[in-house]
């Protein structure tokens, strides 16, 4: 049976020791997040940083975990590479792909002002529109020397900084808070 963590242990992270739906620290109040709140994606991150990217990059860049790696471990595992044809892939919704003249199997580049990464287009009809997915963990030797994290940037959500427990809990980059767009760079 699983029991809740002891109050004193949990209180290192959250003052009450339990999940808090109401937070009254100054940072939360200032950002209007004392209660759970929906905020428009990118309004306080990409668009705040550089308003000119609005409409220029129209896809949310998501770097998800791969079935074939543990983060970047096993990136050079031959068996895992055989299972995915040694090809890094860019997953797109078919409508987004068609709009950009991208067909299944094309070599595609995801790019923004910060960098680029390339992979083979896979059209996933079950994937939501407006999203480009790249699987994290590929070493750059498989990416023509590029890195999938060239597109991300160190955006730290201010409310993440309210608690800091050395070695356990530290504010981290919001990896999936990045915009990009896709273009075809070659046929298969």
């Amino acid at each position, binding site marked *: 049976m699983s029991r809740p963590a002891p109050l004193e242990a949990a209180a290192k992270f959250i003052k009450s020791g339990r999940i808090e739906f109401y937070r009254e620290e100054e940072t939360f109040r200032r950002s209007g997040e004392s209660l759970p709140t929906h905020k428009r994606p990118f309004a306080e991150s990409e668009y705040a940083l550089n308003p000119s990217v609005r409409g220029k990059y129209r896809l949310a860049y998501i770097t998800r975990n791969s*079935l074939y790696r543990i983060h970047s471990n096993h990136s050079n595992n*031959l*068996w895992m590479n*055989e*299972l*995915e044809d040694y090809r890094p*892939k860019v*997953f797109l919704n078919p409508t987004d792909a068609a709009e950009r003249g991208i067909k*299944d199997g094309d070599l595609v580049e995801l790019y923004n002002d910060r960098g680029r990464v390339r992979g083979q287009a*896979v059209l*996933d*009809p*079950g994937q939501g529109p407006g999203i480009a997915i790249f699987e994290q963990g590929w070493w750059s030797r498989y990416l023509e020397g590029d890195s999938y994290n060239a597109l991300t940037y160190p955006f730290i959500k201010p409310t993440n900084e309210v608690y800091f427990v050395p070695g356990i809990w530290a504010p981290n980059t919001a990896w999936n808070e990045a915009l990009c767009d896709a273009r075809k760079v070659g046929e298969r």
Partner: protein
Amino acid sequence: MRYGMVIDLDLCVGCRTCAVVCKEHNAQAPGTWWNRVFTPGSKYHQIPAEAEGGFSMYYLPVSCMHCENAPCEKVCPVGATYTDERGRVLIDYERCIGCRYCLSACPYGVRQFNWEDPKGAKARAGYQEGYSYGYPFPHRDKEGRLVYTPDRPKGVVEKCTFCVQYTDKGEEPICVQSCPAGARLFGDLDDPNSRINQVLRKEKGERLLEELGTKPKVFYLPPKRK
């Protein structure tokens, strides 16, 4: 005794663990896979296929079906492929002459050929010299036929043996032992009380390409939710 397998496609999560442990325990060279897991209807694994009224995504593990009426066995001109007393379709690696008739006869495409010495294939793929994996000992049947050996010689055909080296000792094939979803059952089709027969009495098992009359001993419980 007649070994058989039941794979519940509602339980299979498509993790491909079975394919990887099969490759490892049976010492398959780079490029060789005795056991593969597909996403039916889709070119890519774990990407849904368009289907009537929406999408479909389920997974289909495929390895040797150990057919009762095995086409591979029939075409083998030297009797290297045979069915043993426990219903396993096996290959005598010392008898196979590499004609590959069985490769074209098998409707499931599970047989694979050693075009080169596996040591050469491993070296080319970049394995460290001397690195080896898999069950380390040769294994022979009662008549002395060589039905498992870690490095199969150049020029022979190989495929799933229901892990003959383990099932001979009363253990289950490694894919059954390691499936994290418990999707695979293994047992004796001749024993009315075996777990697989109990399951097959309750649910209708389907076999791949049943219409060909190959009578596979691998049964699938089709997914209720595609």
